[in-house]
């Protein structure tokens, strides 16, 4: 953990609560998938919760985020309602998108969530546009593009770096380097450090330990402040690890394995939630009872979300013809 911490015990417990909510909701969705209860694919964020949590802690509903196909964590970290998330993944009428989009498209524009995105890199352009809108509005709002190491190899990132630096847009580019482009280890498809890709544009960048929520929080604070001050974009490369597969169904179609069990086990020892718990303990910042209370609170929120989603009906078939045009 970094030496300089600008977070109170209360702040840290807030980060802990948010990470745990993401974890427990997704563990439940993973179980649902295994039982065959989910209609479509889910890409879980387990192991990467510190990134969305540490960044979104600096944002309000007036700020924008664009997310990825692995987007449940961003949705929840930005204040999305877990009931609406679970109901959406269940394909129900009461879902965030009324069952029209599912896991890969969870969005809540009233919370500044431009949506998860099924196209790798697809959210980057949307975030640049929201940053332009924020700049024109002159109310100090910022826009954050979450994207993976895979998207860092899409050309749109270079276009976004150029135009956002040129126009000094209030944009924070957050690369979640989770080690894999789908099933290809990042090093086999990527040259150099992703954080370095900002350098030729004069855009400040940093590579941070993405499993350390305090490190992410600190780096994001600087980037968000810079954006709010009208000084332009930043790039954060958060180095983390995808503890789950690319997609929960992958065992059903993959023949070989693309990583070793030992590698996964090694990264599991660096679990961001356990790390923050350890930090709180070692520094006497919160009694174990505080974390137990959060665990119970989160369990209740998960149960409520599942109950809400299960009780919500499937949409009427004629809804399939709605919403194409305003």
């Amino acid at each position, binding site marked *: 953990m970094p030496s300089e911490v600008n977070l109170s015990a209360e702040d840290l417990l807030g980060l802990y609560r948010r990470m745990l909510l993401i974890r427990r909701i997704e563990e439940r969705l993973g179980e649902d998938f295994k039982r065959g209860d989910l209609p479509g694919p889910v890409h879980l964020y387990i192991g990467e919760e510190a990134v969305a949590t540490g960044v979104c802690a600096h944002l309000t509903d007036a700020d924008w985020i664009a997310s990825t196909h692995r987007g449940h964590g961003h949705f929840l970290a930005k204040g999305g309602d877990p009931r609406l998330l679970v109901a959406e993944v269940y394909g129900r009428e009461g879902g965030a998108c009324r069952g029209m989009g599912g896991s890969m498209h969870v969005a809540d524009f009233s919370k500044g969530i*431009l949506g998860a995105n099924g196209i790798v890199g697809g959210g980057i*352009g949307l975030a640049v*546009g929201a940053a*332009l809108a924020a700049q024109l509005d002159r109310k100090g709002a910022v826009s954050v593009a979450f994207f993976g190491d895979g998207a860092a190899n899409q050309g749109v990132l270079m276009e976004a770096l150029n*135009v956002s630096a040129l126009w000094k847009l209030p944009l924070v580019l957050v690369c979640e380097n989770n080690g894999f482009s789908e099933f290809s280890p990042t090093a086999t498809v990527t040259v150099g450090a992703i954080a370095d890709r900002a350098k030729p544009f004069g855009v400040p960048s940093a590579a941070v330990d993405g499993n350390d929520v305090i490190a992410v929080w600190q780096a994001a604070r600087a980037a968000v402040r810079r954006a709010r001050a009208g000084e332009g974009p930043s790039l954060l490369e958060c180095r983390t690890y995808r503890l789950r597969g690319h997609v929960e169904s992958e065992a059903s179609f993959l023949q070989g394995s693309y990583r070793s069990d030992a590698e996964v086990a090694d990264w599991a020892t660096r679990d961001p939630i356990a790390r923050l718990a350890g930090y709180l303990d070692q520094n006497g910042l919160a009694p174990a009872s505080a974390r137990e209370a959060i665990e119970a609170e989160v369990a209740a929120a998960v149960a409520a979300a599942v109950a809400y989603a299960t009780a919500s009906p499937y949409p009427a078939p004629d809804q399939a013809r709605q919403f194409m045009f305003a």
Partner: protein
Amino acid sequence: MARRRMIQAINEALAEEMARDPRVILFGEDVEISIMGDTRGLHATFGPDRVRNTPICETVMTGMAVGAAAAGYRPVCHMMYGNFLYTGMDAIANQAAKLRYMTGGQIKLPVVYMGVFGAGRSSAAQHSDAMHPMFMNLGGIKVVLPASPADAKGLLKSAIRDDNPVIFLQAAGRGGEAGDVPEEEYTIPLGVAEVKRPGSDVTLVAIGAMVRPALRAAETLAGEGIEAEVIDPRTLMPLDQATIVESVRRTGRLVVVDEARDTCSAASHIVAVATEAAWGALRAAPRRVTVPDVAIPYSPPLEKALLPDPERIAAAVRAILGR
């Protein structure tokens, strides 16, 4: 009425809508100097916040338009040549066309992507496509192709006010064509065709730049005692099926002229719609006058050999009438 060139009419529509609504913004490559003339003067009038040159970056530009619209603006994204829409296609096809739908109708996406389309100026294959059919097929995009200055102005104003993504395609190289434009404020609704010339013997549907040669063909045919009813759909998505079908039921004959390649052209769709709806009234198989399934060549005689012209259109009408 005032006499206006096509490009002036478009320029007026942009200026009027930007003056009317401060949320309308315009960006694209070289929109400040305006190589086509349609955005000329707007940067000076509305300033650098609302009128901006972008780098050459269609991939992020088309996505940026979606993000800015989702965040409350009404962007006009100037693509210059319609072929460059392909370079920005992910954001158009995967984001703009679907974001409202897949998020359950949470937002409106008032975006206009504008550019020039079509052949006839020796611009060769990568600057001459008629790409409107593929946008018709995306489902979530409105497609507008004006054929006259008055239509261009009224339709563009409606496109900017529309709460959905619109592709506005102006025929390349026809910016200098003049026509009468109303002096008072007006708009033309999207989804309403116009009968450009009434007739009783054959329905001649012509799209975009094909309206003018279709009207010339109709004049020639009138001299032969054939009265062609020329219909300009003006917007292809939504398509005013009722006006076309009503005409075909009356005339019993249909020829559709389209500058797109034959396979899956807008003409193919219009023929299919009319055939299904007016089968009993048809007295002959409908015909399409389109561009063959090849790219557009550079050399003038080669290009001319492909494009529908008044002679080919008139020949198709004579054939369907058995003359």
